[in-house]
């Protein structure tokens, strides 16, 4: 398993934002592809990137609420993947590992002074935010309502303490179950469940009467 921030990978993981190869059978990338990623074959790296970049960026964006920071984290995650490629285990699904290092990179950012400085200057009403969020609907009125709803949820999410925010993003947005969240955050299964409950309560309090 590459890098110290990795976690044990479960073949049963199904992570939102992963572009899976079409066709029946196991949704994990082919072992052959991961073998080539290990060898840093450019073509395989490109394929790997296409499969996972949206997962990494989506997760980072939901965690950070800002496009530029999410792009920075995405760059960092792929830099780490490139550096650690030779330690990739082709028999395991790389998605949990990517979720873990993305989550850790976001947490590093939160704990750095840079995050606090950016947060003072950043605004969730930033037009860039609207551009990133694409509902894909043709109804302008629905789009406005959905956009407003998104803005409120994202703003409330960013107000949550870091552990609670991570819990909501991994569980509700990324689609991980509590066991998987516990693996990513290195906490007990029960602790992950309780943390999610507290996160949901806190989010409810912030959004009550506003949705």
């Amino acid at each position: 398993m590459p890098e110290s921030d990795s976690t044990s990978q479960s073949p049963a993981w199904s992570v939102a934002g992963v572009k899976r190869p079409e066709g029946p059978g196991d949704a994990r990338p082919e072992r052959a592809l991961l073998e080539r990623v290990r060898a840093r074959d450019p073509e395989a790296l490109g394929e790997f990137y296409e499969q996972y970049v949206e997962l990494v960026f989506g997760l980072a964006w939901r965690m950070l609420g800002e496009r530029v920071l999410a792009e920075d984290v995405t760059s960092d995650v792929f830099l780490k993947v490139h550096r650690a490629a030779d330690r990739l285990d082709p028999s395991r699904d790389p998605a949990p590992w990517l979720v873990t290092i993305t989550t850790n990179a976001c947490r590093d950012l939160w704990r750095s002074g840079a995050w606090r400085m950016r947060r003072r200057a950043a605004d969730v009403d930033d037009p860039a935010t609207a551009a990133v969020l694409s509902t894909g609907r043709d109804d302008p009125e629905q789009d406005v309502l959905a956009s407003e709803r998104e803005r409120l949820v994202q703003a409330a999410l960013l107000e949550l303490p870091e552990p609670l925010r991570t819990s909501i993003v991994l569980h509700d947005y990324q689609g991980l179950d509590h066991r998987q969240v516990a693996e990513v955050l290195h906490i007990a299964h029960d602790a992950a469940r309780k943390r999610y409950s507290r996160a949901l309560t806190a989010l409810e309090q912030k959004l009550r009467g506003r949705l």
Partner: protein
Amino acid sequence: MSHADEHGTDPGSRAIRDAVGARSHPRLDATFRARLKQDFMSGRLGPLRVPAPRVPWRPALWLPVAAGLVVVAGLFANRGPDWRVVSAHGEGRVRVGAASFAPEEREKLAAALRRGGELGIEGAVTLDLVAPGAMAVTLGPGTQLALPASPGRWWSRAVRARVRAGDAYFTTGRAFHGARLSVSTPEVDVLAVGTAFAVLRHEDGSCVCVMEGRVSVAKRSGGEAVDVPEGMRRVVSVSGEAETLPILEDSRHRLHQQRSSAGRTLDR
């Protein structure tokens, strides 16, 4: 997985979960996406963009450590002066605990009893000790004494010595002010608050001789404590009989001697 049925089923909770779940998927900027892909494929990725996290200051961790350091520093600063050997002469040996020293081995002797200890004078040795500024003790031949550490500067100001046998002469110094010295023998308990006195313990009983100030002497067998004024001595026999008499010239002389040898060190 379906978590809707696990965490709150009221309409408010459901609305929140729906709102979270309905959020759209953010899309990566096409230009950035393409550039990052090229960099990833070619391995031309630059240094990490996210700064290393600052190590958070953890008061919960540091406060006990700081408090511990303050306590240790306080205990160290409170320590009274170490005992020093002013003179040791005569034939015989001085025992400190299990160790035994010749009178000439003053440095070793001083190192052994810096913070006090069980002292025994074997043979015809006279030992003069001083805790600078606080207290001086002279031990005559055959004396067995539990010597306490000198009194602390701010707290632990009460010290207790025990004379099992022989003659012990005590003189307190300026730094002793406010401290309490109690000396016990099998027959008496002596309490002094800044004075010069001797406690002589022999087979037939104990004698407390006061050259300066006033000490309180209580029989261990019971009864009221008696204040012994300057120039007087209190004699308590093994059988419990007690009387107060004028101090003997020899005791006065010995206490004068002690004052003259340790007076400067005691800052009297």
